[in-house]
């Protein structure tokens, strides 16, 4: 079974990679299998972890879980066109909950905490910061401010305001460049992992 398993894994891996040459039935077959087993995987884990593990086991201790179960069932009625409108109720629950939670979380963590860290003494409390930290603090404060000015489109980017926005673009270009560099790193890492499987685990060529 171990030998069969590793050949199945290699077959599916190479099937996906065959797309690099051109689109072909081997790739399409591998892709279809992936779609099917992914959907199946999610259904199985959700059934055992959520429906059974959370709702079914917890329903006697916490009867309010039945409300969630009913709302969940109403969600599934979306598949029936005539009564599909009722799925708006659980959908609006999800949207409302997400909106409420995100509004506070993002305001607190992504606005307040970030602004607080930006508006700090540039030279440290009592001029205790090192030259490295002073330069860094200035870069952070100026860069964040300039970047925010760039995103302010209610005023035309002219004069001093425009110059600040221009500086903001430079900082944002550095951000995008770093993101691109890290994206390349990430994709290459994933590829290395698969190549290691093919040449190492499957063919045993890597010592």
């Amino acid at each position, binding site marked *: 079974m171990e030998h069969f398993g590793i050949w199945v894994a290699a077959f599916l891996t190479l099937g996906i990679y065959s797309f690099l040459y051109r689109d072909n039935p081997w790739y399409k077959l591998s892709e279809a299998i992936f779609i099917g087993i992914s959907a199946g995987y999610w259904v199985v884990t959700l059934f055992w972890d959520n429906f059974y593990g959370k709702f079914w086991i917890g329903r006697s201790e916490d009867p309010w879980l039945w409300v969630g179960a009913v709302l969940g069932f109403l969600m599934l009625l979306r598949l029936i066109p005539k009564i599909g409108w009722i799925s708006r109720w659980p959908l609006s629950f999800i949207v409302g909950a997400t909106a409420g939670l995100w509004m506070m979380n993002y305001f607190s963590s992504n606005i307040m905490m970030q602004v607080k860290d930006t508006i700090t003494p540039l030279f440290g409390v009592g001029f205790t910061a090192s030259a490295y930290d002073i330069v860094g603090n200035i870069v952070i404060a100026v860069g964040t401010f300039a970047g925010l000015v760039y995103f302010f489109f209610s005023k035309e980017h002219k004069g001093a305001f425009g110059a600040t926005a221009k500086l903001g673009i430079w900082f944002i270009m550095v951000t995008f460049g770093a993101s691109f560099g890290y994206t390349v790193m990430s994709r290459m890492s994933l590829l290395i992992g698969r190549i*290691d499987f093919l040449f190492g685990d499957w063919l045993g*060529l890597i010592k």
Partner: protein
Amino acid sequence: MSTRIKEIIVLAFIIVFCVVVYLGKVMGWMQGIEFPAWVSATVLGIVGLSLLWILIRTIGGKLVERRVVFLYVGIAVSLPLFMTLSQKITISHEVQALYNALVELPPGSKVLVSFDYDPASAPELQPMAESFIAECFKRDLKVIMMGLWPQGPQQANMAIEMALTKEGVPSEGIEYGIDYVNLGFQAGYEFVIQRMGSSFKSMFKTDYRGTPYDSIPLVKNVKNFSNIDYSFNLSAGFPGTVEWVQVAVDRYGLKLGGGNTAVQAPTVYPYLRSGQLIGLLGGMSGGAEFELLTHTEAKATKFMLSQSLAHIIVIAFIIIGNVAFFRGGRKSALRGTE
């Protein structure tokens, strides 16, 4: 001979080659390949010279087909796996900070590890998970694992299996339910974290095996985040580190270190700067640095040579593409790459 027949012949050859090599591996008459240093240097030299030749051709107006780029990427990633060249890995500040926070914990401390990724991100995050858990076991720290992604608990099992084989880990004395536990997965994104803030048990009524929460010695006295001493989140996207910071750190005061894929890492640097994240392992290089700190050199360290060469190849082709652009103008550059 038609293209179709050529393709079939090549495919048949590849299949026969793979079968023979596999049989060689199974029967034992084929050992792994390892390039000596001079071969590695020669191979790298040949790759470098071929790139120079491509650059010269590009300056001459002959552009490269995309399958050649694919071939070079494949070579850049594959060949270093057979090389024995070593590289010096520099430890970055954010990796050191995460490690320092871990080693400060007294024995018996409870560490929550959240596996928020799927197999697609495993090459980057799995080595981090293995070395982190191994370090926890070496220091007698208790590990509580869970996942906000459904594949997380299975990745956690695989990480535990590898961590127990690491040098210095007292694997015989480590027991499930006492030294570590896998609570499994729950759907709900950040609402799971939100609920855990008041009660772990209300979200995870059983562990991943179906054992009731109160029957597990390690967690029966763990009510919420106030009973957790340190948390490490392995994240590949949403939900992940951002949600843990927003809910667990900012609302419940949890101490959190992040292990992120390289795609996500740049986006969490503001949290690192503001102190919401204690430390960060970014991508495979972060994993390699952490392996070095914990003396558990494994896949992340081994893959860094491939990573280095792959980056050089990408940079080389960007430069070559720009040379073509500046030499011939936009039209000829686009025409030549079809």
